[in-house]
């Protein structure tokens, strides 16, 4: 039996693939930046506000981590319009990715913050800093440095999870693949090209994040590194 692979029809749709790549990168970058910012806010909120604030943040994190990203996406895409928000697929995707990544990142960053020894906080408070100032100037950066490997893994996982946004017809890379497959009927060829593209994107992001870690958290400044095992998945 001879297997006939025809890549030409797929290559003809290159512009769809390129747009898909751009959208995948855009969604991931957006989710990473916004999600991290939200996570820092949530960690700060939990550290500095009372017990109830902490419980609220915990509840949010547990719900996001124990339900599938797809269901969260559906909830946002199908549900929010009923509340009066006009939501295109791409916007819903970005929101869902941001909220999801923020939950995982909160967990990771909080572990980093908790690993900073109490004596650092005491030293800061003794110098008449407010709790917020201690969090911002003394605790946050070393905490980030310690969990950067775990956080980086999480970011790469988010890039891969963006593929799930194809379920609501967002034309990122997987969505583009679905369209191309429908047009050309060359399923295997389409998906092997798209798979290889994801592979390249993931490895590139890994390398970029590693380089950023070296640049912003240099070894010489004496920041200890923590490698957390595993890292959470979607």
């Amino acid at each position, binding site marked *: 039996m001879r297997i006939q692979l025809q890549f030409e029809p797929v290559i003809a749709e290159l512009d769809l693939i390129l747009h898909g790549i751009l959208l995948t990168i855009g969604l991931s970058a957006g989710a990473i930046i916004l999600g991290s910012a939200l996570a820092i806010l949530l960690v700060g909120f939990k550290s500095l506000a009372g017990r109830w604030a902490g419980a609220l943040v915990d509840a949010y994190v547990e719900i996001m981590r124990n339900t599938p990203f797809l269901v969260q996406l559906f909830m946002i895409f199908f549900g929010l319009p009923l509340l009066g928000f006009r939501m295109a697929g791409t916007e819903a995707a970005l929101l869902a990715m941001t909220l999801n990544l923020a939950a995982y990142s909160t967990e990771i960053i909080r572990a980093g913050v908790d690993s900073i020894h109490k*004596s*650092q906080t*005491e*030293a*800061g*408070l*003794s*110098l*008449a*800093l*407010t*709790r917020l*100032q201690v969090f911002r*100037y*003394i605790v946050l*950066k*070393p905490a980030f*440095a310690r969990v950067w490997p775990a956080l980086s893994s999480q970011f790469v996982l988010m890039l891969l999870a963006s593929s799930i946004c194809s379920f609501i017809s967002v034309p990122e890379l997987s969505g583009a693949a679905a369209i191309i497959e429908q047009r050309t009927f060359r399923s295997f060829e389409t998906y092997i090209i798209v798979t290889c593209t994801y592979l390249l994107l993931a490895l590139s992001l890994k390398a970029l994040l590693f380089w950023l870690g070296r640049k912003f958290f240099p070894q*010489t*400044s*004496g*920041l*200890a590194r923590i490698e957390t095992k595993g890292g959470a998945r979607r």
Partner: protein
Amino acid sequence: MPAVVIENVHKRFGPVEVLKGVSLNVEAGQVAAIIGRSGSGKSTLLRCINGLEVCQSGRIEVAGHVLDQDPRRLRELRKDVGIVFQSYNLFPHLTVGENIMLAPRIAKGLDTADVRILAVDVLAQVGLSEKFDAYPDNLSGGQQQRVAIARSLAMQPKVMLFDEVTSALDPELTGEVLIVMEKLAKAGMTMLLVTHEMSFARNVADTTVFMHQGKIWEAGASSEIFAAPKTIELRSFLSAGTY
């Protein structure tokens, strides 16, 4: 008006009472050494003075501030009361200079240029001018402790607290720290130090306080306390040499 007034302070950790009615006055410009066995409550007492520990009853007034729970008043107090810890607690992600400049800049709101001048000055006082841009990790224990002293000095405090600051150091490194502390004492800083360095207490401190089981057992001029201890406990403490 004494710089430090401690009146009948009680402190519990859960069911254990660690300070059982401690009263102590330290005049401005005086150096008071607090000695005693581990568990006698010395460090706890010191940490109560800048509010790191909360006492259940009693009154503490230091540098004109009365100790209470209000965060804003506590911060004002901490601008006038500096503390140096046993484990230095320098901020590892900041250089020596940045460690020193941080609090004056963001807690006191001083101008960056002025703060830098101040930092260079206090660093010179502890003899480490050349380490301004080094990271704490690259310094020896004694150097780190001196930086910690400089960091507190940069806040221009009225009272300085020292919590067993040489206990974590290798013996050959304690000297450089004690020299800095002696300089400070001669310059007229009000100092309370919890210490195991008996000769320092004897020669540099004006008053020595011996704590035992959460109470002040004996207190008085250093020369008298060491030469003629009145209680058995202090006598056995001094002779045992096990601190």
